[in-house]
């Protein structure tokens, strides 16, 4: 095989991988603190993608400038969702983890239906694209569009920023404390309710950013979210074992594996590769062959 093709495949895979890690980190923020899976995570990402699309299409605002808008909008939206539906469920469940898991699964599923179909209603199912920095650059034999470089760069930058935020700021440390041991965290006078709200909104904000980035290199549709949720879930479970940096490694790995897999097996199998990985990983965890996220913090 041609070295050129190999490099090209890997580079493309890394771009997607960066995006997957970012999405997974957002999911992780929600999962870590509350131990619940936000199955509507990808819908927040989709909203981020549309934010970038509409800002560019309607007012010609550069995607680079729409990134912070997306972050703020989705942070606010996440906070509202937390207040309206997540917090009541947490209250209602008392100490029963099982009740919490079922309640939130169904509620987030409701959020998914609501947001996705609301978007379909408002913006139709048309495929939309954002044309920004799409001219290919030649990097010493490697061809890559500027937007892909941008996506990879920002993904890495934000991942590192999150790493520092979680390890060196008070709020970040509080999030990790609650993730590791809720009881002990409460005893240290950490306001778990507030931390829950902050980490949830932060998680959706990160999803919004990932969506704005995805808009640059992927087709935008109201139904794009679920696949991202599932990919992020895979990455979170594999990479969550260690740290933010572990998630980054897992995301990059998935991106590259997908890119090579699709090349070797055919494009029709691209998503199936993810699903097979997903199923295998859940089985490995359930059989106790791979330690789940439960005991470890971000």
């Amino acid at each position, binding site marked *: 095989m041609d070295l050129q093709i190999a490099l090209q495949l890997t580079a493309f895979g890394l771009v997607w991988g960066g995006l997957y890690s970012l999405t997974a980190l957002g999911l992780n923020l929600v999962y870590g603190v509350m131990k619940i899976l936000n199955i509507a995570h990808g819908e927040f990402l989709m909203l981020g993608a549309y934010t970038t699309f509409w800002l560019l299409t309607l007012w010609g605002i550069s995607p680079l400038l729409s990134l912070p808008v997306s972050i703020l909008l989705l942070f606010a939206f996440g906070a509202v969702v937390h207040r309206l539906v997540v917090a009541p469920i947490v209250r209602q469940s008392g100490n029963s983890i099982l009740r919490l898991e079922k309640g939130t699964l169904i509620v987030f599923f409701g959020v998914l239906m*609501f947001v996705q179909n609301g978007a379909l209603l408002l913006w139709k199912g048309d495929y939309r694209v954002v044309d920004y920095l799409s001219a290919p650059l030649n990097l010493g034999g490697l061809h890559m569009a500027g937007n892909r470089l941008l996506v990879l760069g920002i993904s890495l930058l934000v991942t590192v920023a999150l790493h520092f935020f979680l390890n060196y700021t008070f709020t970040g440390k509080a999030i990790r404390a609650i993730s590791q041991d809720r009881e002990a965290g409460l005893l240290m006078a950490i306001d778990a309710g507030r931390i829950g709200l902050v980490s949830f909104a932060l998680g959706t904000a990160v999803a919004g950013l990932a969506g704005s980035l995805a808009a640059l290199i992927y087709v935008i549709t109201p139904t794009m979210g679920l696949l991202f949720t599932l990919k992020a879930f895979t990455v979170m479970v594999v990479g969550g074992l260690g740290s933010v940096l572990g998630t980054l490694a897992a995301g990059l790995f998935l991106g590259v594996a997908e890119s090579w897999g699709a090349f070797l097996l055919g494009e029709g199998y691209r998503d199936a590769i993810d*699903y097979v990985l997903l199923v295998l990983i859940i089985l490995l965890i359930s*059989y106790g062959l791979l330690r*789940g996220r439960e005991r470890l913090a971000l």
Partner: protein
Amino acid sequence: MSRRGLLTGAGWLVMGVLLLLPLRGSAYVLSFFLLIFMYVAMVESWNLLSGYTGYFSLGHGLFFGIGAYAFALSLIKGKFPPGVALLVGGLAPVVVAFLLGFVLMRVRIRVAYFAVLTLGLNEIMKTAVANSDALGASYGFTIPPVPHLALPYYTLLFIALGAIATTIAIDRSRFGLGLRAILEDEDVAQETGVDTTRYKILVFMVSAFFPGLAGGMIAWNWSYVDPYLAFDLILSFNTAIMAVFGGVGTVWGPVVGAVVMSVLIEALWINLPHFQAVVFGILLILIVLVSPGGLTELLPRLGLRRRSWQG
């Protein structure tokens, strides 16, 4: 007359009307009713697995799709008579459920993980079928049309009744008690002598049978089958939503959910296709917040039996 007697009387009346409907009903009415029957069969089967044991499936349409394909293949390639082909459609998913259950049901899988896993299995099967030339790839198969609309109508009516009857039988049996014990606390159930693995595999198999039958019949009624239609995630999603909405872990909750939401789909779909799903989303959130036991818990005066679903 007692309340119980009234309910039984009403039940027989409904049955009578349903049995006689094909004599009078228009094609539209019959098609609408057979869709309700399909959903009742789907939701009640989902309920047997997810409602009674708590293993929340988001991919129960997998068995519907397998049934549809098993029917189409045995009719077209196997040259079986349609009745036998329908039965093959029902049994093929049971075999698949046995094989899957052998792997999935030996361990405890967390609620959200199981949901994602079942969704993944449905998508894997869809992709596998769409990429397999032997299974018609993404074009699928054309099936000779049904002779008369009354055929799918009555068949699906009896499939739905079969699903309800099976649920009643299980609900009253020792088996059902064991399943509920798994829902409450799987470890304790295991400790107190419930063979949880065997119970879970068994209920998984039972819950695959009726969706398979329904899949075959619906495919015949469509007169074609393709992977995107047969393994459409919407079916899996609607199934879970209807069950939760009606009230899971009971005999009648899922039936109520399936009927009420089917009517809602029909009423809303005519005006605005995606609006229906938006409403579903809101209802789902509301029902969990207001009444986690579903619609049948909200209306206790109906005298419907309800058991606590959430641990």
